């Protein structure tokens, strides 16, 4: 009997998921203009053949708007998760490598950020930066790095006492080479997994602040904007306005979460040969 090649199936899943997310992103960019077209002759249409997700009170195609919104969300997510992860890496490594007051300061800072309610922090940062695209990116990026920074700090603390690092020092390998050759490669699995698992958080928080009106401005086809506007029409029975964009958002988030989980399984020595 031929066993299922787990690594192959996992990578296949990763490929498909990444392609799907990429396609959504690209499609959203292409449909950006279509999402803004208003036509009152076709307003409030329920889902039908021409308009898969229906149209809204201004006759805009909800399918195009959803895709454009998701695309924007994914791009904001990528950017913020990327910045967050890099901040986490730098602060985590600094904290563990230098120790002493540097470690105390960074750890205190991590506790402070973690101790503040998440959504509140995002809103405050977003308002401070003038809302809009910059506000959301700054708000989400500067509030999500803490847990990954902690993980990386712990990992570096452990690696610091690894005999191969100490031996390299005695052999006369320079500090930078030791970090480059013996430290960073060992952090890669944690970093990658952390990065991918940050996406869903970033996307959800972007949508939340936008929904609450502290994020992206209302003329942009963001998922948060779509959802908050559709709230007003839900009571009049126009269910499609919220259902499809909401479900699509959940789907994207779940996809990212699964992606992160699978990458972890692939890199974890405890399951690498399955």
């Amino acid at each position, binding site marked *: 009997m031929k066993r299922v090649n787990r690594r192959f199936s996992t990578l296949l899943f990763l490929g498909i998921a990444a392609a799907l997310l990429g396609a959504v992103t690209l499609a959203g960019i292409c449909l950006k203009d279509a999402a803004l077209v208003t036509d009152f002759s076709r307003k409030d249409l329920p889902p039908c053949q021409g308009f898969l997700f229906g149209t809204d009170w201004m006759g805009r195609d909800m399918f195009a708007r959803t895709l454009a919104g998701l695309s924007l969300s994914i791009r904001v997510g990528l950017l913020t998760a990327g910045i967050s992860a890099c901040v986490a890496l730098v602060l985590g490594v600094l904290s563990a490598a230098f120790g002493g007051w540097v470690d105390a300061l960074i750890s205190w800072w991590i506790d402070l950020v973690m101790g503040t309610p998440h959504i509140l922090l995002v809103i405050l940062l977003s308002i401070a930066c003038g809302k809009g695209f910059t506000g959301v990116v700054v708000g989400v990026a500067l509030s999500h790095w803490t847990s990954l920074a902690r993980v990386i700090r712990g990992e570096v603390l452990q690696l610091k006492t690894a*005999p191969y690092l100490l031996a*390299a020092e005695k*052999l006369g390998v320079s500090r930078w080479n030791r970090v480059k*050759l013996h430290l960073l490669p060992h952090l890669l699995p944690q970093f990658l997994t952390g990065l991918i698992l940050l996406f869903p958080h970033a996307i959800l928080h972007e949508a939340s602040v936008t929904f609450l009106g502290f994020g992206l401005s209302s003329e942009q086809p963001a998922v948060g904007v779509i959802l908050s506007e559709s709230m007003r029409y839900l009571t009049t029975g126009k269910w499609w306005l919220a259902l499809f964009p909401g479900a699509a958002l959940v789907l994207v988030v779940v996809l990212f979460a699964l992606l992160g989980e699978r990458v972890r399984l692939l890199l974890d020595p405890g399951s690498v040969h399955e």
Partner: protein
Amino acid sequence: MTLEGKDITFAYGKGAPVLDRVNISLSSGERVGLWAPSGRGKTTLCRLLAGYERPRKGQVLLEGRPLFPHEGPCPVQMVWQHPETVLDPLLPLGRSLEETGPADPGLLEQLHIRKEWLRRFPGELSGGELQRFCLARALQPATRFLLCDEITAMLDLVTQAQIWDFLLREAERRSLGLLVVSHSQPLLDRVCTRKISLKE
């Protein structure tokens, strides 16, 4: 050249001292066997002499001058009982070997390190093969003293004999000072020029 440990006292954390005012000296060309019952700080003494730990009291002296703190390649190198712990598992062995400069091809040949092993990762080779890499790395040009902490204790007898055969010739040629830690008296009798033991 002489390596000296003078009045070395050491304890881990707040525990009882592992070493209490230990004196040891080792000259170039000498092969000193260190013997003691288990748990009497043989490994700790090696770690102190190689600079992995700092003594609570006392000093490590090279030619009468304090050796540590030391920048760059240390003239005192340690080889360990478990070679797999001192080689980065994510780095091909060839790169681990050459982090400190190009490896001497003659040395590799004498250690019977095969070319194809250079591309392998530590997890793919046996303990005996890894120990050859550790020796090649520790025997860089700057090395004057080699501290061998049970380096063949985990290996089979044939590999043990191969490694010591090489090491004795190399120590002779470069006039290295060797500190040999082992629980095996016959091995110490065979390879050392003098023996010392750690008392309580």
